[in-house]
């Protein structure tokens, strides 16, 4: 029963993918969209069933399907592990996935290749489910790489534009750098423990006796973390995520905000027992997370592309999650993943709605005053912005506050960095809101003429997500956390952790709230009171130019990695290859030369030949008979 249901969970999106690939074109745009949505909804329904089952029984479900890869000291099964963590992840993957599919039916309606869009989306969900429910690291790796492939396909969905293709390629390659790290981590884990199975690994770690392997475990943990960096866009592998905004907006919402980029956090949470015994790596994770949070936030301050702002915001929020992971507060990270999934998906879909209304315009300098034309979009996005800014009672407040709380308990500088990043978040989010929805419309007359609220297929998902963005925080209220309780089987530490709210906590909460309000206030002062609009690209100067150009990180990478490799390639192609080839030909030439010289010996004089023959004969005969 469970096996079949798990297969249904996994294969429903795959079936949707197949149908859309083979029959999508003949089925028509709406039908293929409905099929795609239904496929994911079926998965969501099955997930709900599993969720209820697991909530009730608190027992993980293990399913073994068949042997996959055989290695000398262990074998890898193709199997599933449905426990609290994976079902939790499945809930929002399939849940938000369904909403975004629904949204896409209308949003992508004008595109000519709707069926392939839904096919890719379904394939993505399929791989994402594989990633989440894989029972061992390698099955997870199938999903891990598979979502990378789908991300590649979807970023480059409008493949006629080579810039988009470049972005897609970049995303894939950056991900692959991380994947290599993950693979190395898998190798070390396999070598050390002779298994890749999560349950078995956990048993090994819990029984202990691994102290002598800690060095190698640290290396493995670091390698796994590199993998997570690639997928979850952390420094130094984050640059693909802003570029990935080249894809259609629902893709950005689903893949690059809510689900795929959280895979790194999922993996680290999955392997929490491994990271727990490697404090050095945890420290690295925390620092990388904090720095990423701040770094991306500063870039986000000055971006003018509405999706780019959201992209850097995503990177920044992911950084905060990694900060939590590095501090060992996995449940907090997971909590933030969930709330972030809601409000960020809502923001992206909202921005999609705006872009849709403006006929493809993404530059905020050409927006403004949309509040009246698009009330639903405005309200939902406002709710999501409040949530992400950490305004009390919205979901983001709880999760972000917990991260900062944990940071404060562990390390004050990290807390400072996190708080500053939060303030910046509030600033740039409201900068976005003010520039987009307030004041006068700054676009062309024609655009103004066409301004309209999006149809209900687009607004319904927005409303649903906004509701969750509001109330999502309820799952882990301070002091009475349903989430912590739910995750206890996964994170054994939680069982004896006590959550009490002291004065420090209240104070920190107050600081965070004030910080958020200060950020909003600054944005208000600048963009409503002073009525300023970001200047044109050429007029940007000073440090904001550096920020606007993303610290020139792309250029630096290009100069120190991509260019040298290409130069090397040309050098190899033109110089090394030809000289190696010449070397081989050299042997031939030398032989030729010897033969040319030797040919001169052949004078053609028979007398000489005979003379040489006789002498030779004599020599041979006398050697044979007389020399002995």
């Amino acid at each position, binding site marked *: 029963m469970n096996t079949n249901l798990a297969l249904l969970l996994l294969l429903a999106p795959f079936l949707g993918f197949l149908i859309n690939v083979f029959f999508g074109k003949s089925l028509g745009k709406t039908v293929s969209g409905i099929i795609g949505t239904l496929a994911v909804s079926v998965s969501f329904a099955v997930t709900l069933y599993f969720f209820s089952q697991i909530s009730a029984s608190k027992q993980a479900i293990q399913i073994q399907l068949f042997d996959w890869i055989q290695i000398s000291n262990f074998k890898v099964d193709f199997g599933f592990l449905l426990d609290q963590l994976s079902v939790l992840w499945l809930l929002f993957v399939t849940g938000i996935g369904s909403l975004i599919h629904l949204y896409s039916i209308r949003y992508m309606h004008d595109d000519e290749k709707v069926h392939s869009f839904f096919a890719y989306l379904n394939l993505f969900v399929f791989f994402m489910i594989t990633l989440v429910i894989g029972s061992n690291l390698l099955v997870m790796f199938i999903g891990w790489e598979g979502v990378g492939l789908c991300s590649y396909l979807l970023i480059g969905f409008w493949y006629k534009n080579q810039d988009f293709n470049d972005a897609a390629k970049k995303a894939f390659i950056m991900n692959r750098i991380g994947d290599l790290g993950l693979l190395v981590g898998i190798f070390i884990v396999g070598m050390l423990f002779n298994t890749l199975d999560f349950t078995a690994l956990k048993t090994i770690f819990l029984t202990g006796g691994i102290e002598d392997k800690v060095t190698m475990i640290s290396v493995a943990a670091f390698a796994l973390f590199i993998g997570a960096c690639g997928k979850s866009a952390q420094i130094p592998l984050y640059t693909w995520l802003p570029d990935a905004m080249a894809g259609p907006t629902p893709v950005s919402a689903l893949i690059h905000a809510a689900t795929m980029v959280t895979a790194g956090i999922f993996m680290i949470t999955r392997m929490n027992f491994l990271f727990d015994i490697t404090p050095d790596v945890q420290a690295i994770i925390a620092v990388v997370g904090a720095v990423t949070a701040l770094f991306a936030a500063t870039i986000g301050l000055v971006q003018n592309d509405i999706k780019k702002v959201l992209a850097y915001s995503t990177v920044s929020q992911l950084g905060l999650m990694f900060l939590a992971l590095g501090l060992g507060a996995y449940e907090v990270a997971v909590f933030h993943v969930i709330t972030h999934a809601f409000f960020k998906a809502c923001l992206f879909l909202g921005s999609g709605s705006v872009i849709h209304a403006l006929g493809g315009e993404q530059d905020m300098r050409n927006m403004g005053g949309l509040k009246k034309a698009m009330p639903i979009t405005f309200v939902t996005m406002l709710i999501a912005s409040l949530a992400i800014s950490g305004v009390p009672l919205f979901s983001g407040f709880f999760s972000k506050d917990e991260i900062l709380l944990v940071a404060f308990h562990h390390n004050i500088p990290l807390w400072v960095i996190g708080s500053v990043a939060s303030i910046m978040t509030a600033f740039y989010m409201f900068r976005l809101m003010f520039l987009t929805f307030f004041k006068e419309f700054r676009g062309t007359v024609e655009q103004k003429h066409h301004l309209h609220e999006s149809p209900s297929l687009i607004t319904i998902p927005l409303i649903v997500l906004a509701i969750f963005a509001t109330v999502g925080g309820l799952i882990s209220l301070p002091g009475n956390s349903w989430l912590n309780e739910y995750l206890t089987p996964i994170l054994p530490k939680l069982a004896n952790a006590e959550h009490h709210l002291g004065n420090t906590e209240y104070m920190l909460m107050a600081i965070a709230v004030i910080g958020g309000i200060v950020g909003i206030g600054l944005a208000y002062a600048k963009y409503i009171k002073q009525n300023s609009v970001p200047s044109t690209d050429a007029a940007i100067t000073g440090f904001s130019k550096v920020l606007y150009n993303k610290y020139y990180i792309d250029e630096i990478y290009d100069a120190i990695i991509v260019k040298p490799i290409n130069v090397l390639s040309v050098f190899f192609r033109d110089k090394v290859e030809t000289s190696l080839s010449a070397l081989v030909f050299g042997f031939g030439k030398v032989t030729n030369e010897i033969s040319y010289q030797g040919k001169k010996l*052949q004078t053609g004089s*028979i007398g000489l030949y005979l003379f040489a023959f006789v002498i030779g004969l004599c020599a041979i005969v006398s050697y044979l008979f007389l020399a002995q």
Partner: protein
Amino acid sequence: MNNILNQIGIENYIFLSVILFSIGVFGVLYRRNAIIVFMSIEIMLNAVNLLFVAFSTYHQDAEGQVFVFFSMAVAAAEVAVGLAILVSIFRNLGSITIDNLKNLKG
């Protein structure tokens, strides 16, 4: 029968053959006329044949003579073909001096 070798001695036949053979070699090297070179080759062949027969008698075995018989057949064939070649060379070049035959020069 074999007392002939008792009287003369196999060594003398050997000497005779060797000298005859050497004369043949000398002729091949010394002369430029292809016909004479050919004759020298015949002399060498005969030197060897003679020795065969001598040893055949020495060993009292007929096989040596059989071999000589075959070698004569080969020699006949060789002369026939060889002379035909010479004739055609002569026709083409107008002389049979072997110095003119330098097509093998590399």
